[in-house]
């Protein structure tokens, strides 16, 4: 796993050594290089203030990079104003023109191209049909629900057949239930149209369900690029492991380093990891362990590795799973999630009761940074 990906001169979108300095002491975007393939949905994921929006705005042309360049389909975008770039953006909270009807909002970009009326009307109708708003063309944006406004914004940014579409927190303005439905619908429409897409989000679920690949950003740097599975199952750094999903992080040292396995001593438990790592004996490492990979049992399991005894400190029922917080002898806490695949399970440990946590030797990820 390399934090900075190797670059490819034929990629559809090439971002090279991009730097943005707002003069605030630290760099908003720090030497970022990325390759994005044609037809891909690529997500920039990170907490607020990590530089993902600045990066997106530089691609759109709203910010000028301090250094570096952006190439789209082999053409350098440097110096092109936003209105000359073959890129359209779907804005956070949509930025629909309040004085124009839905129809005119979608037609706005086409009118700027000087497209004749007939093909333009056809294109607008086609777009409205794509987002299932044919009957809403005469309405003003404020007469639509949040979900409908979101679809108008999508239709408007797709109408000009952009080479690249940018999505800035596309679903942040919707409530949770609608957001989950829209994630899949939005990704389906984008794939159907086949447009290359870069989206910015702070919501890992959104990034993982919609994107083919994602980049995790923090403080202007890209920490890891990969498919959602890669990033979730093999995070490259502590930050990535912690940011994406729930994780238990345990500090320890390598005590046995064999070809097929390593053993790591974390004090309260001894890990046996079933895959080799690039490290040396005695090296300090962090073991990352996802709560859903751990099982809770009443009796002490066989063997001496990958198990720890604790008392249930807290128990939260989420419906499809239950999250236990296990208090370990040293005072450390371990999050364990158990799927509720049985109704009215009676042997589940209650708060205050003791239990053994155990996990297979393929569950851990060993992090050196």
């Amino acid at each position, binding site marked *: 796993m390399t934090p900075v990906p190797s670059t490819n001169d034929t990629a559809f979108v090439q971002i090279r050594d991009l730097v943005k300095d707002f003069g605030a002491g630290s760099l908003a975007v720090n030497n970022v290089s990325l390759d994005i393939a044609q037809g891909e949905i690529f997500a920039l994921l990170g907490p607020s203030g990590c530089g993902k929006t600045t990066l997106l705005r530089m691609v*759109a*042309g*709203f910010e000028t990079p301090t250094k570096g360049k952006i190439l789209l389909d082999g053409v350098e975008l440097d110096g092109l*104003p*936003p*209105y*000359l770039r073959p*890129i*359209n*953006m779907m*804005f956070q909270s949509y*930025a*629909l*023109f*309040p*004085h124009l009807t839905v129809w005119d909002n979608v037609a*706005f*970009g086409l009118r*700027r*191209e000087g497209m004749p009326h007939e093909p333009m009307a056809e294109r607008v109708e086609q777009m409205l049909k794509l987002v299932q708003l044919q009957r809403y063309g005469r309405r*003003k944006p*404020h007469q639509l629900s949040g979900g409908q406004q979101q679809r108008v914004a999508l239709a*408007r*940014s797709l109408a*000009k057949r952009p080479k690249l579409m940018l999505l800035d927190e596309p679903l942040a303005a919707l409530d949770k239930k609608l957001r989950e439905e829209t994630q899949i619908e939005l990704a389906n429409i984008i794939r159907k149209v086949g447009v290359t897409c870069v989206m910015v989000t702070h919501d890992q679920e959104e990034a993982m369900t919609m994107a083919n690949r994602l980049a995790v950003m923090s403080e202007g740097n890209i920490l890891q690029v990969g498919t959602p599975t890669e990033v979730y199952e093999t995070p490259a750094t502590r930050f990535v492991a912690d940011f994406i999903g729930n994780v238990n992080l345990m500090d320890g040292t390598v005590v046995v380093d064999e070809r097929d396995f390593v053993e790591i001593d974390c004090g309260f438990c001894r890990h046996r990891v079933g895959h080799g790592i690039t490290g040396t004996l005695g090296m300090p490492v962090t073991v990352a362990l996802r709560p859903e990979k751990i099982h809770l049992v009443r009796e002490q399991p066989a063997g001496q590795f990958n198990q720890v005894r604790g008392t249930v400190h807290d128990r939260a029922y989420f419906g499809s799973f239950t999250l236990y917080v296990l208090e370990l002898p040293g005072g450390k806490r371990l999050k364990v999630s158990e799927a509720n695949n049985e109704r009215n399970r009676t042997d589940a440990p209650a708060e205050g009761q003791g239990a053994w946590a155990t996990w297979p030797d393929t569950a851990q990820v060993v992090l050196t940074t």
Partner: protein
Amino acid sequence: MSRPPASSLFNRMHAHPLFLAHSRKAVISVPFVWLLIFMLLPFFIILKISFAQMGIASFLPLSQFKEGILTLNLDLTHYQFIVQDQLYFRTYLNSLWCAALTTFWCLFIGYPFAYFMARAKATLQPALLMLVMLPFWTSYLLRVYAWKGLLMNGGLLARVLIYTHLDWILLKLRLIVEPGMFMNTQFALLIGMVYTYLPFMILPLYATLSKMDLRLLEAAADLGATPWVGFWKITVPLSKAGIIAGSMLVFIPCIGEYVIPELLGGPQSLMIGRVLWDEFFSNNDWPMASSVAVVVILLILLPLAIFNKYQAEASEVRR
């Protein structure tokens, strides 16, 4: 159950069902009563006078009830006179034209002013706003007088205009009658009016422009609009409410303006305010003056009604 002992008369009054039922209406009715006494009532008095016949020292009564017969004596000759006499027609037209010209120039100067004020640094905006309002601290009569000093022969602005030969352009535009003479011309009148009413244009424009969502301009640019197109297609339509409010605030008082034409305007800029003054106080023909006033009010009510209709629509849209 016992009442708390501290229930004063005031508290009990507030708790009284009659008070609760009518307190809302009472509060709302205050401005209505104000308008009734100081606006509607005088208007009806003026209206009545406009239909009155002049007696020797007072007006003849409008209606007479004698021997079971009610006779209404509505004297319409003044209105007839207004319609027939070219002078009144031309004065009305001139007033409307002057008001329209003033509104145009206020918009032309005020819009960029308000635009850059609204887009200026947030820390700078209160100071700029202060500068716009500063002239209000001096009486408007004094400020118009000051223009006399600037425009009269040998005045500062007059000398600059002559030096730069701009007076020839003004002559070509028929804003002045002879080169080098600016006082008592259409030009002086316009300068005085635009200067006086400019803040009334800038303030509502600034209010709408500063509230505008700037991401809309980014969205327009993203969709292929150059900054110029974005301005005309997004900024201007979205500031329509401010343009209309500012125009009304300038146009309506300009129609009836008396002081500025009197001090700066020339003989050819006969405006309705001056005619009114003459009819009331020089000719002492109150019925005639009242008729002129009624027509002015109707002229002003028309744009005001359009403005109100637009406002109602706009608030509908916002909801």
